């Protein structure tokens, strides 16, 4: 329960800034070492990385923030799930479900005013993501099926369902390409000024704020945190209906991932196809962990990973360094954070404070396997 205590705000934000700076430095160091190891000039790599991510207004808005949008939303999906001790690794499938629904709804409301069409398609995406998550959520609640396994199954089913739709009911009229027709103008998300960035980014930020407020300030948020921190205590104290809260949190998580899919389709690709997500649902786990499962930090972390991926594309384009390097950096950051937080946890075990990334987990701590 230590974790639920609010710390002194100024000290906590100082710590957060310190942690963010260390993560950025660690990432830059990883890029340098990896580029050098692969036989490239590390300075050119860093330069290209910077120019492709934050170095210009175009890179920032049409690269970094555009890329960050689905990462923030799926990162939030993972954040709320992990906070409640739900190991939802199905954000990828829930995202695809959201993309499918937004596309299907989009075509049926495309002739209406954008004021109706856009919300309808977004809501369709959220509902589909939640519905996709409801299967593993229900299987866990009713039969105790491990959600790790069931969400993996649902990811495959979603992928094949997209594969079927874009060759069947939703295929473009010439029937040549495995993708849908372009969405009608009315369901496309408005763009920000002269950039490629769409208002989905603002939606993602609102979601982050809303989740932060709900988790910190409301009774419902307290229940989510308490079932993650210590489900047995919650149950025996008669505080919370653990199963119902777990189930609902799972749906919220799926809804957020579904929203990510809807926003991608309506704001970036304008069509549905199988490779809609280059693994956002998995990168989301890194986003949420680097964000320390705090919704606001998850948004920051999403922008950071957006910058990394946008920068990596530029690195490949301008310096000829394979962009998969970004994937190694992501994995390296996860492992580094795990190692640091676990060592800290060991050091702090008998002390008053747990490590800065201690995350509650119902059945297995997310960072630590020891029960809370």
């Amino acid at each position, binding site marked *: 329960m230590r974790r639920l205590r609010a710390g002194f705000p100024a000290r906590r934000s100082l710590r957060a800034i310190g942690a963010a700076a260390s993560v950025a430095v660690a990432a830059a160091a990883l890029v340098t070492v*990896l580029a050098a190891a*692969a*036989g490239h000039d590390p300075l050119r790599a860093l330069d290209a990385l910077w120019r492709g991510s934050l170095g210009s207004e175009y890179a920032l808005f049409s690269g970094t923030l555009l890329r960050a949008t689905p990462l923030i939303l799926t990162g939030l999906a993972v954040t709320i799930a992990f906070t409640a001790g739900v*190991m939802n*690794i199905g954000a990828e499938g829930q995202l695809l479900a959201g993309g499918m629904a937004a596309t299907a709804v989009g075509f049926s409301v495309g002739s209406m005013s954008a004021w109706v069409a856009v919300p309808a398609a977004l809501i369709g995406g959220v509902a589909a993501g939640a519905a996709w998550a409801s*299967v593993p959520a229900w*299987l866990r609640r*009713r*039969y*105790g*099926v*491990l959600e*790790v*396994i*069931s969400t*993996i*199954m*649902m*990811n*495959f*089913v979603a992928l*094949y*369902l997209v*594969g*079927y739709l874009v*060759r*069947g009911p939703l295929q473009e009229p010439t029937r040549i390409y495995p993708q849908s027709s372009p969405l009608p103008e009315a369901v496309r998300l408005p763009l920000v000024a002269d950039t490629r960035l769409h208002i989905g980014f603002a939606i993602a930020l609102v979601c982050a704020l809303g989740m932060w407020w709900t988790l910190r300030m409301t009774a419902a948020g307290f229940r989510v945190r308490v079932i993650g921190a210590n489900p047995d205590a919650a149950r025996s104290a008669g505080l919370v209906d653990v199963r119902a809260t777990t189930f609902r949190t799972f749906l919220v998580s799926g809804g957020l991932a579904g929203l990510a899919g809807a926003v991608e389709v309506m704001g970036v690709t304008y069509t549905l196809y199988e490779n809609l997500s280059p693994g956002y649902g*998995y*990168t989301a*786990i*890194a986003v949420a*962990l680097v964000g320390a499962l705090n919704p606001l930090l998850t948004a920051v972390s999403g922008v950071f990973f957006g910058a990394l991926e946008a920068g990596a594309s530029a690195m490949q384009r301008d310096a000829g360094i*394979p962009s*998969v*390097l*970004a*994937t*190694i*950096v*992501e*994995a*390296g950051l*996860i*492992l580094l954070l*795990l*190692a640091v937080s*676990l060592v800290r946890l060991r050091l702090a075990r008998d002390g008053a404070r747990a490590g800065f990334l201690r995350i509650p*987990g119902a*059945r*297995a*701590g*997310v*960072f*630590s*396997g*020891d029960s809370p």
Partner: protein
Amino acid sequence: MTEAVAFLEATVRTATPLALAALGETVVERAGVINIGLEGTILAGALAGVAAAGALGVGVGFVGAATAGVLTAMVFAFFVVTLRANQIVVGTAVTLLSLGVTGLLYRGTFGSAGVALTIPTAGPVAIPLLSSLPIVGRPLFVQPITTYAVYVLVPLVAWWLYRTHAGLALRAVGENPAAATAAGISPSRVQWAAILFGGALGGLSGGALAVAQVGTFAEGMSAGRGFIAIAIVALGRWSPMGVSFAALLFGAASALQFFAQSLGLAVPYHLFLALPYVLTLLALAGAAGRIAPPAGLGRH
């Protein structure tokens, strides 16, 4: 008739890497650990297998594949068992790591076009007599050596799990680590060993895919097989025999996509591909209360 034989042949061929990875994962999960880094393990095995086979011959290729698999498993085991970090998070990281490292190595060594790396595949070997059996002869007994490895390993692992003290100790760790500790078993050592074994078979699975089937490496060529293997373990209800049949089912579903047209099937094959996963979900729900996963799975 020849269509049916060809279909069965493709089923067994497709099922082979799946069965190898799933068999290893069965042992890992029986020890109470879910390794979703398996996807990365298979990928590493595929690249190492092709590189070693290209340089030193096909036999060495399989050794290289298994070795690379063990290396990725060591990363996983160190974080999960030694540092006691969360299995799912570490598994995700290992998969990402392997995707990145294999991609970087492949491009760095063989260029971004990546045409330079083709090797002669380890072709099918016909087993005398058995291969001339009607219908099942060719599908089962004219296969690459990796398929025969599955035939040997499945009963061997089953025997080891159910009939030896070490197998009992491993299952005890998966069901109830505290009780196992009380009985003088070290859960950490058992889990380390199980994960390394799973890594060797996962790597071999990548080798089977790249060296015995495709004859080259492509970025991300594991294409979700590590996750499919985890589905297979669940559908096979955590037993080696069950897992081998489940692997055949998944193999059949993906073999069907190559035959759907020639067999004149009107049903879209993507729905066929989804079918085994739906079946696994149903099986998981149906088996609840009767045949459950190891009680300590994912908890350690």
